[in-house]
């Protein structure tokens, strides 16, 4: 299908899927679809069931939590090339925060159930996938820790 081929090329260019076996890439592309979010539109919200993850092609997304009295607080922003969402991997598969587009954002949304079942069938695919996801989460965690240190605060 036209859409799948374009997606395959897309994945081949992305950091996340770049060195993956082309056959696997093709398989994963089959679980993806192009989506667009307008500025201010929610990609997903806290509490929703999580069965998708997104690869941002172009745009900027704020990861937010709504705090009573403070409104939505942005914890982090992600952009081109970043992966958003990990709750689909981990039970109880509920979104832990809001993801809201700050500008026009084009992304690829991957069907989490589809990917999980493919990984179950082919553990090697599963390993390659989780390897990459672990890197993403590690980097995200590392950056979060630095943020937490509040290094620029007045001592």
């Amino acid at each position: 299908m036209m859409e799948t081929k374009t997606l395959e090329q897309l994945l081949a260019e992305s950091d996340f899927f770049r060195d993956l076996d082309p056959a696997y890439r093709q398989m994963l592309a089959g679980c993806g679809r192009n989506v667009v979010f307008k500025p201010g539109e929610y990609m997903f919200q806290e509490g929703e069931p999580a069965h998708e993850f997104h690869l941002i092609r172009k745009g900027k997304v704020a990861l937010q939590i709504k705090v009573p009295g403070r409104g939505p607080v942005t914890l982090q922003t992600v952009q081109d090339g970043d992966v958003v969402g990990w709750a689909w991997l981990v039970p109880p598969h509920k979104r832990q925060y809001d993801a809201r587009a700050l500008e026009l954002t084009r992304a690829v949304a991957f069907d989490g159930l589809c990917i999980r079942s493919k990984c179950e069938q082919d553990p090697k695919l599963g390993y390659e996938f989780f390897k990459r996801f672990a890197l993403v989460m590690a980097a995200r965690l590392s950056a979060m820790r630095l943020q937490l240190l509040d290094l620029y605060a007045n001592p």
Partner: protein
Amino acid sequence: MQIRSGSSQNIAMPAPADPMLAQPWCVCRIVRETDDTFTLELKPQNRSGQMNFKPGQFNMLYVFGVGEIPISISGDPTQPRILLHTTREVGAVTRAMRQLKPGDVIGVRGPFGTAWPVDESEGADILIVAGGIGLAPLRPALYRILSRRDLYGRVVLLYGARTPADMLYRRELEGWRARFDLEVYATVDRAMSGWRGNVGVVTTLIPRAPFDPSSAVAFVCGPEVMMRFTVDELLKRGVQPHAIYLSLERNMKCGIGLCGHCQLGPLFVCKDGPVLRYDKLADWLQKWEA
């Protein structure tokens, strides 16, 4: 294009006969940058006075009867008759400085220390990574680079601040962003409502910054933890250790390498630094309580 990796650091300009003697400079004005940060604008007491400094150097500033502290020069090196220092209010001396009025006199000793290698980096892409008040000692380098812009490749500024309200030189930042020959990316650790820019530590801006790691020189300044992690990201992207420069800070009493306070391992931050090449700093930055 060659990055002159073996070149020596810029040596301090020769100071007056007795480098421990303060020269009087007049306060022009004090500009409030953020809640706790201000810029001191000084002019020489007599008409012919000026201070030729190199970007990255610092002065020892003395408030009469209160004390003396090292502060990086944050102004334009092509304007030696206006001396700018941006500092945070963190102790007795900076508090006293904050209370000064135009016309008050401050004692100045300097300029001391090594400089950002702006000359040696001609031909390279320049990546400037600033964290918090670290933008202040980097601003003179940016001015100098912009004054001879065509001698450099891509010039990128990455700036991380605590919150949007804590950003320094906001108007200037916006002016820099508007230029076509300069890329500016800013991020904050903590957003305020209405902020639609990046949120996250400044290191997250490095993987995607538009520069060529194999021919780039990086100037980094900010809290030491931030600099350590920034170096990690730069190395990951393929910037060479000898092409990364950091500006360090230590307790200083003399500023001229004689009182011993500013040592980090074998380095005297006041005369071997404050701008130090990363490969020369080697392990000392990793050694806890060194």
